[in-house]
């Protein structure tokens, strides 16, 4: 699904990401962990196309997407959430989902004829399903700015799903959540996997990472220092030194 080959991004002299190799297979949940400033969010921004690569290449379903602008990457099937919640506060919950329906098939069915042949009804139906999935149906006409923190997080996830992504990039989705909310988020992520969505998860909250990830890659100073199943990572000495806070 996703292949990063020697991906690098330099900010001036700072090597935020430095020669990263990472593969995410179809239907897999891969977690990217590491201390603050290790290059996790930069990696997400590189995959989403927020800024260009300094070196390396990114392949998505076999195609080099390194040069595509942001909106084309979304249309190709890569959606994301943000580390700091970003919503259209002056739009309603419903409208936030509506504007996000920009997958290629959505665009096709907004054609003049397709629109009247049920395209509109299907778009509405999909929004209803997303509202149900995110437990936001009762808030559909509320302005996004007026939602509680947990609801905003759920809306962000729902909005990312509105474009029917094949690959979902989650940038610290559990930040600021309590234990119960983290449990609900885990259920949502696992049910997304069942629907065939591939997920790259950036997260500090180990409770979530260990519960959902098939594989974990650990970053430190922009380089990958370990990769493996959750149990292997927990036992890895280098990781403990860099991050998990062990003495070993």
């Amino acid at each position: 699904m996703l292949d990063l080959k020697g991906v690098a991004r330099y900010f001036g002299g700072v090597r935020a990401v430095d020669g990263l190799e990472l593969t995410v297979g179809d239907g897999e949940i891969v977690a990217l962990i590491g201390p603050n400033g290790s290059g996790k969010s930069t990696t997400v921004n590189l995959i989403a196309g927020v800024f260009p690569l300094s070196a390396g290449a990114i392949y998505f379903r076999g195609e080099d997407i390194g040069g595509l602008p942001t909106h084309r990457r979304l249309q190709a099937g890569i959606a994301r959430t943000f580390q700091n919640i970003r919503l259209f506060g002056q739009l309603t919950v419903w409208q936030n989902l509506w504007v996000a329906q920009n997958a290629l098939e959505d665009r096709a069915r907004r054609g003049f004829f397709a629109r009247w042949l049920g395209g509109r009804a299907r778009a509405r139906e999909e929004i209803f399903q997303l509202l149900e999935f995110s437990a936001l149906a009762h808030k559909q006409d509320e302005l996004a700015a007026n939602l509680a923190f947990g609801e905003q997080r759920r809306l962000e996830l729902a909005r990312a799903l509105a474009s029917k992504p094949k690959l979902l990039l989650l940038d610290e989705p559990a930040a600021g959540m309590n234990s119960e909310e983290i449990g609900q988020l885990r259920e949502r992520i696992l049910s997304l996997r069942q629907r065939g969505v591939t997920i790259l998860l950036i997260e500090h909250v180990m409770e979530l990472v260990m519960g959902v990830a098939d594989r974990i890659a650990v970053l430190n100073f922009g380089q990958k220092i370990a990769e493996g199943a959750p149990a292997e990572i927990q036992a890895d000495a280098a990781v403990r030194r860099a991050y998990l806070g062990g003495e070993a």
Partner: protein
Amino acid sequence: MDDFTLGLLTNVGLFSFLALSAYLLLLAGEMSFGQQAFFGVGAYAGGILTTLYGVPLPLAALAAMGLGALAAFLVGLPTLRLKGLYFAMATLAAAEIARLLFELLHFQREIEGELAGPDGTQGFRGIRWIFEQGIEAQEFLLLTYALLALVLAALLLVERSRLGVTLRSVGEDPELAAALGVNVNRFKLGVAASAGALAALGGVLFAHHNTFIEPRNFDIMLGVHSLAYALIGGLGTALGPLLGVALDIGVLEGSRIFGGARMIVFGGLVAVLLVLRPRGLLDEALVHCITSRALQRR
């Protein structure tokens, strides 16, 4: 209706097109100080077509709108790459260039024994199509408001559509809109072209109402006012800018008792209003509040 009221009402209608033009770009998150240029392009193009070539006004208006859209597109191509204040400065510069070009525009022909057409800083006299057709001032007022109603209805429809919601999303956070699959650059160019066409339509009507235009008509003050219309009236609905025009012109006329100090009084009022309501009287929150109440009643 006396001539003064008639003229005032027509002006409110005419400048509403310019207000809606500035409003469209404000929704897309861009503050343009240059919409008066497209108003001017429309005025000159429409005036030349009807006066020098005898083209009927409806056709001339369509052509002028096309030209206004093209001009706005060409100005938008480089300027929309800039952000915030830099975009404002670039559009202001473009509009001043346009005004200077109007000053250089000499294009006169003899029509029925008299020279007609733009004559640089001397202006462009004798745009008399509506008088030659025997259209009364009151009829012209009706025509202006009918066109305005048409434009307004179209805008209100668009605002409820997905296109309108996307427009607001691009204005609120363009990077986020791009991350959600919107081609922000192309979208803004489309908005700029539409806004240019709207301003040009207002300009055509302005030229034919006044019968005389000169480059000074399209100076920076007109651009500032067009922004003020939208910002005072509010960015929550297309009705906002219309309220803004009515208030702006109403307050200006009403404050004539202050004599020479009236622009100071006016400026103070605008400043106070924008501190209290930065997105105008009919802002998004108020409009949402009203529409959701109306929905609940149903």
